[in-house]
């Protein structure tokens, strides 16, 4: 029944990509000028792909819902980008990066894809430096590295806490060069609302001009979806307000399988929610866990006193604190992978030990680091017998030089000085490993339709390691897709320009306008946010950090109910033929309301715990995640059949030839 062909090239893993590149079809330069490619989304993956494809000679049309490609949410990535350069001479290699990524993904990623990712990682750094990306450097003028959670080498390149910004501006600058040349036609403030299939192949899109409301037809020989992840299905996440699943969901409805929707990364170090007014959550780089110790009070009376404000966290004696990560995972301590750290925080807060008014916060405490660094600094500067105060002062300065921007950000939001009192953190939805199913060439199950970056499912398995998202986005955009798409386009050189007045375009446009009209005409009583918040709450409570059969079934039923109410009681003021932010949101939430149910269905199907997916039914006696390789070593690829509940599961079995499957342990 399954028509899933991952198209993994034959041969040893280290030769697969090279051999594949040598054997796939090429398009000659003169013919490239006759071929159009649509790229939807202009973050790291989409921006890099658009620029590279245009450089190669294709005519690119790029689409962004923001007013500039530079504003895609890749810009918010803080920590860094991994690459197996081994500049630090600590034994790093392509194989180690490959191994760490597969292991970190809890053995649910496709080996061949991950190996290729590790292989091209070094080229990314070379390319970005050549573009003028100002990475951090040491005093010798060479590139600096930092280490990140879950690995044993320093392979993360960074630009202070703004690595994503600098990499995106690099891709954006490459795009600008092509826009100036006329090789990229940039459509800002446009949102893709459907894909158009002609003879089963992706031949264009229907997009809405968000300024005028005009529905436009755009044709091309291939369509690339690089629209990021769907974390906003939870309403509250670290994603941008506009981040959405719409483009991915529309192609899903036209035949692209959606893979592993339940794999969601909940990031442990986010600023806790402060109240019901909250519209989004803010992440603070995982690098903070290098120096911060995470704790909650040991005794309930102290928790209550802290919440009441009668006890300050700094007054609590060392012995009355529960450094629960160090207690549970002595080997990795505060540096356990993200999924483990997040679940442990939830466990303590569920047990009632949360330290703020909402009961959903734990401390991230730098006091020990102040002392450690302060003593070191005093020693270096030849200061003998420094006072405790002096040591703290020196230590705080060291921490400020390392994380100053994060501390400042925290203070702006929380209005507390994190140098003087421990930070409060809580996990938040951050990244979605799941996404559109793609083969080795990044092609979806729709011929001519590709997916890149966070929008696809391919490289991170069930959990993504820190600093790997930027790597994957740029690898897909700069170094994978531009080659593999040629294999398909080589057969399109005789196609000629694709007309937009075909019945297929007529039908797709009608479908879009009908949906918009239907939404505008509900004229109910509730705002879009009302439904989005309700969806988010169910997702967080039932399909969040811990999931069980009862909760998932409830979630599916409740989401169906919300969807029904959405389509009968939604209110969108204004008109469809002008700028209308409520209408934009409505379209996105309508898709989240369908995705959410599939998400829960996928979580229900996967009765094991792996990476970011934790099923309460599948845990060890100590409450640790228990993976089940015998029954679940597959990719779940869902085929759309009308209602999310009716989606059909296709399994891509995962085989591990180069890495031995092991149960992860960080104890």
């Amino acid at each position: 029944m399954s028509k899933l062909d991952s198209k993994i090239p034959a041969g040893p893993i280290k030769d697969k990509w090279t051999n594949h590149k040598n054997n796939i079809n090429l398009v000659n330069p003169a013919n490239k000028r006759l071929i159009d490619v649509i790229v939807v989304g202009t973050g790291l993956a989409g921006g890099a792909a658009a620029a590279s494809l245009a450089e190669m000679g294709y005519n690119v049309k790029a689409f962004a819902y923001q007013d500039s490609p530079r504003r895609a949410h890749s810009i918010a990535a803080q920590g860094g980008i991994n690459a197996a350069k081994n500049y630090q001479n600590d034994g790093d290699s392509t194989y180690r990066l490959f191994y760490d990524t597969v292991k970190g993904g809890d053995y649910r990623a496709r080996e061949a894809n991950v190996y290729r990712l590790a292989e091209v990682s070094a080229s990314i750094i070379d390319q970005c430096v050549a573009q003028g990306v100002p990475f951090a450097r040491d005093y010798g003028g060479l590139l600096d590295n930092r280490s990140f959670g879950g690995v044993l080498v320093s392979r993360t390149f960074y630009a202070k806490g703004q690595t994503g910004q600098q990499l995106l501006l690099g891709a954006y600058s490459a795009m600008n060069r092509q826009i100036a040349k006329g090789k990229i036609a940039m459509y800002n403030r446009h949102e893709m609302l459907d894909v158009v299939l002609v003879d089963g192949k992706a031949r264009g899109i229907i997009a809405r001009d968000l300024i005028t409301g005009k529905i436009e037809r755009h044709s091309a020989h291939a369509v690339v979806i690089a629209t990021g992840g769907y974390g906003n299905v939870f309403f509250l996440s670290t994603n941008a307000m506009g981040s959405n699943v719409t483009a991915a969901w529309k192609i899903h409805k036209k035949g692209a399988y959606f893979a592993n929707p339940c794999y969601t990364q909940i990031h442990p170090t986010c600023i806790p929610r402060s109240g019901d007014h909250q519209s989004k959550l803010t992440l603070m780089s995982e690098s903070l866990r290098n120096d911060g110790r995470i704790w909650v009070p040991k005794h309930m009376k102290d928790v209550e006193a802290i919440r009441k404000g009668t006890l300050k966290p700094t007054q609590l004696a060392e012995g009355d604190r529960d450094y629960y990560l160090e207690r549970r995972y002595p080997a990795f301590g505060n540096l356990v992978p993200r999924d483990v750290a997040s679940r442990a925080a939830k466990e303590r807060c569920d047990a009632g030990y949360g330290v703020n008014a909402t009961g959903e916060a734990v401390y991230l405490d730098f006091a020990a680091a102040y002392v450690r660094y302060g003593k070191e600094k005093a020693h270096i500067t030849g200061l003998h017998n420094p006072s405790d105060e002096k040591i703290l002062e020196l230590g705080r300065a060291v921490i400020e030089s390392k994380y100053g921007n994060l501390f400042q950000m925290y203070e702006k939001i929380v209005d507390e000085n994190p140098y003087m009192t421990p930070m409060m953190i809580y996990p938040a939805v951050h990244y979605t490993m799941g996404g559109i199913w793609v083969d080795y060439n990044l092609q979806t199950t729709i011929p001519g339709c590709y997916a890149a970056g966070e929008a696809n499912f391919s490289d991170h398995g069930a959990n993504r390691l820190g600093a790997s998202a930027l790597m994957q986005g740029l690898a897909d955009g700069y170094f994978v897709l531009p080659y593999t798409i040629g294999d398909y386009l080589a057969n399109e050189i005789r196609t000629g320009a694709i007309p937009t007045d075909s019945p297929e375009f007529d039908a797709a446009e009608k479908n879009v306008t009908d949906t918009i009209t239907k939404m505008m005409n509900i004229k109910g009583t509730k705002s879009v946010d009302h439904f989005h918040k309700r969806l988010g709450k169910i997702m967080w409570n039932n399909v969040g950090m811990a999931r069980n059969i009862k909760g998932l079934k409830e979630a599916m039923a409740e989401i169906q109910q919300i969807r029904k109410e959405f389509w009968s009681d939604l209110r969108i003021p204004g008109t469809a033929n002008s700028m209308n932010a409520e209408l934009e949101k409505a379209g996105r939430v309508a898709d989240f309301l369908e995705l959410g149910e599939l998400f829960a269905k996928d979580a229900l199907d996967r009765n094991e715990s792996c990476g970011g997916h934790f099923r309460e039914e599948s845990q060890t006696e100590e409450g640790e995640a228990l993976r089940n390789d015998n029954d679940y070593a597959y990719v779940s690829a869902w085929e759309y059949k009308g209602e999310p509940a009716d989606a059909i599961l296709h399994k891509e079995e995962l085989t591990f030839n180069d890495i031995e499957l092991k149960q992860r342990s960080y104890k």
Partner: protein
Amino acid sequence: MSSNNDMNLLLKIWRQPDAQTKGELVDYNVTGISPDSSFLEMLDVLNEQLVTKGEDPVVFDHDCREGICGMCSLFINGEAHGPGKSITTCQLHMRSFKDGDTIYIEPFRATAMPVIKDLVVDRTSMEKIQQAGGYVSINTSGNTQDANALPIPKADADAAFDAATCIGCGACIATCKNASAMLFLSAKVSQFALLPQGKVEGAERVKNMVRVMDEEGFGNCTNTGACEVECPKGISLDNIARMNREYLSASLAD
């Protein structure tokens, strides 16, 4: 979670249905605003009220809500991104205001940044400046030289980074009494002027970018320094001096 600290405010918001129609300031009252909410969350509350009443909500640009995408704009009580230094509008919190305050909320204003609707402006002119030369002409190849083959002094790399942190929000233009884009432009010119990769085409870059800036109808820099003060990322005026230097020597060499 309402509390005693909640605020009631009078908002004077610029409403304008589209680019062609004349706009005006309209008064709105909002109540029960938590001091911990962000400025944009306060506008969310207002919009929720407006939608419930069936009125057109206020349109404003925003996206990441963590001060990095550069999407949010707003001229609040006479300042770009409102009171407070080194922040974007999305990082402004209501605790910066007092119960009973009147708050003026206007779009960024410049000939080169016309209003699209309400508080949303068109920053295409800034895009055009970037397209005129804000790049290094290098193709994706995978065969560029090794990243460490070209050491760059840390001081230069750091200064280039500082210039490169510009988020392209347009606050410099909005706050400049002349609506000049010099700080924005000079940040990009400086980033590349400080790095060996960017020096090669430095002269052409600065000339082309300045030419497009002039064509787009921005005003002239009169060195008031307001841009630097209001810039959420603290981009330095030094960049403008550096760009002037680059431009003058490049155009002298013609």
